[in-house]
């Protein structure tokens, strides 16, 4: 079977070689990079602009951004027909291509995030090393932790106030450099689509900007969700622990802090959401108004074929309802969680409508293509580019986050930042 045939249904006239070649994994790719970039921007709001209320979530989203990072690459590899040749992009980058610099941008960004985390945690790492060394009897776990922390400390054991101050400055600097790089990483994903002149839906210079705004929105939403969930778990654990240790902070204290963080974060979310929607609508209106040759087919895709996906799921459920939720007075944690989930859905649908929607019509403008997501992984291809492949990509960052936080805890660490 030809690649793409399994999930493409043609209607009216479609060129014989046309299929939906960019499928679910290419929807996942901008979605995941968007989350990475967004999470990073959120953490930088605190580190660079000193938004104090975000202190708690800043460290959290930074580590989350790190766990999301490898996952931004996964969908690309899963999508390649020759995944083992992926390294060719680094060996013979052909720079007229928008994809060629991906490896470079990605690595740069990865290094920035990793070093920022290192500076944030250096104090903690050194303290852990010292504490573990001081222990008289070390069991196997302790020894392992000692080894890990010693390696992570990289010999920089200075804990003087001056050294810690330097760390802090480095964090601020890296976070500041990181913002444009994060935006670039994601705007770049937008450029990959926006520069395809053969595709009437994709080709617009607004694409990178739209991608960045929705990326920040989705990143913030995901951090908020994960933050809320982790807090709930902590509360549960606390109530349980408090039975024996009544001096632990009460759940109410935690809850108060939580609401404050959530309200503040939601403000930024709404800000970027407004920006994203404005740009998207501008794009839509502009297309309708100028009505160039492709508009006829685009209109039937946007207003007829994909109406539910665009106007109900993306704009309605994914933008409008969370917008109302966040703007209504007395935002509760539960409402915020719901709003964030809907925002994530909205951004996912936006990626879907761009990537799949862009292939919903034939380049002949005389026919349509419909995408059927392969559910059951009865072949490697249907796994990779099907529901289960996508779920694997979604699950991975949470697993990584869990692993990373075993070593670098995000809560209850006292620090100078």
């Amino acid at each position, binding site marked *: 079977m030809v690649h793409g045939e399994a999930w493409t249904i043609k209607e009216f006239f479609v060129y014989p070689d046309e299929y939906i070649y960019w499928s679910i994994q290419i929807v996942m790719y901008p979605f995941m990079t968007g989350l990475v970039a967004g999470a990073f921007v959120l953490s930088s709001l605190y580190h660079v602009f000193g938004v104090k209320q975000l202190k708690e979530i800043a460290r959290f989203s930074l580590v989350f951004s790190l766990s999301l990072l490898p996952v931004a690459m996964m969908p690309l590899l899963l999508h390649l027909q020759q995944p083992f040749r992926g390294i060719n992009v680094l060996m013979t980058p052909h720079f007229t291509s928008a*994809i060629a610099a991906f490896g470079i941008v990605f690595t740069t960004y990865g290094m920035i995030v990793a070093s920022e985390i290192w500076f944030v945690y250096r104090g903690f790492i050194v303290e852990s090393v010292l504490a573990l060394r001081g222990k008289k009897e070390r069991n196997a776990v302790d020894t392992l932790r000692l080894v890990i922390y010693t390696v992570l400390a990289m010999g920089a054991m200075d804990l003087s106030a001056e050294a810690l101050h330097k760390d802090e400055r480095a964090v601020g600097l890296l976070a500041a450099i990181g913002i444009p790089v994060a935006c670039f990483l994601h705007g770049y994903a937008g450029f990959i689509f926006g520069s395809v002149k053969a595709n009437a839906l994709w080709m617009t210079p607004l694409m990178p900007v739209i991608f960045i705004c929705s990326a920040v929105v989705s990143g913030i939403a995901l951090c908020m969700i994960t933050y809320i969930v982790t807090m709930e778990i902590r509360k549960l654990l606390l109530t349980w622990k408090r039975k024996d240790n009544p001096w632990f902070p009460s759940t109410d204290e935690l809850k108060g802090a939580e609401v404050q963080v959530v309200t503040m974060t939601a403000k930024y979310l709404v800000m970027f959401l407004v920006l994203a929607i404005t740009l998207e609508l501008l794009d839509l209106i502009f297309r309708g108004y100028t009505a160039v040759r492709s508009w006829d087919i685009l209109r039937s895709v946007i207003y007829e074929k994909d109406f539910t996906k665009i106007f109900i799921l993306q704009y309605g459920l994914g933008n409008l309802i969370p917008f109302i939720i966040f703007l209504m007075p007395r935002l509760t944690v539960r409402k915020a969680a719901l709003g964030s989930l809907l925002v994530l859905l909205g951004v996912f649908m936006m990626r879907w409508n761009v990537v799949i929607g862009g292939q919903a019509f034939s380049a002949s403008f005389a026919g349509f293509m419909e995408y059927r997501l392969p559910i059951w992984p009865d072949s490697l291809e249907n796994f990779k580019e099907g529901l289960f492949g996508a779920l694997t990509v979604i699950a991975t960052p949470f697993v990584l986050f869990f692993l990373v936080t075993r070593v670098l805890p995000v809560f209850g660490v006292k620090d100078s930042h």
Partner: protein
Amino acid sequence: MMNRREFCKKAMIVVGGIALPLAALEVFNPKRLQAEKEGRGKVRWAFLVDTQKCVGCGFCVKACKIENEIPYDANVTRTWVERYVITRDGTTHIDSPKGARDGFTTMKIDQNKEGMLDISSADIEKAFFVPKLCNQCDNPPCVQVCPVGATYQTADGVVLVDRTWCIGCGYCIMGCPYSVRFFHPVYHVAEKCNFCYHRISQGMKTACVDACPFGARRIGNLRDPDDPVTKIIMTERVNVLKEEYGTKPQVFYLGFSKEVK
């Protein structure tokens, strides 16, 4: 003393030694490379399709599939023929069942999911066939977007894919406005028409040109003013597909109609 045998041996080494760098000068002559880049080489392949002559038999598609080893029953093809039927009410119906590999065996229009559409002959205003293939664009977006340089353009204008280097990202497939690219079902890399490069560079015609019984397809060298194809392109009213994309396509059409997509 050097005997004759030794002298011959040494002389040969010296001559060979001098000849080698000299040959390199010829091969790496930057002026020549420059000239080729600026498009003053001896060959620039171009294609001429006379839609008036095409009857939609599909022999070209069949020949191409066999010549270029595209699995015969796979629903992809390097070249195909489209049928255009314009009815009285002004609607254009287009189809190309299996790329017209077996020609057009029925009057009904294949609308894919929408099924077969019966059009009565009395309703038909005009109808014609249009063969399609890679345009070997002068400004090929497929080459531009390939992240690893696996798609490249030769000095004589043909765009080729390196099967050993393509990573199968599909960017070129997305970038081609003519949708002539696909993934090869066996090699799993980008694939497209290359004007039968293995044949034309050996002085033969492409498989489709040879297979067309009506002379609807012709290939020629634009740099040769005496080439009959070049003469037609220069002197007659030819057209190209989708000029608005700025790709500078090099497949020229005679008898083009505005309905052609």
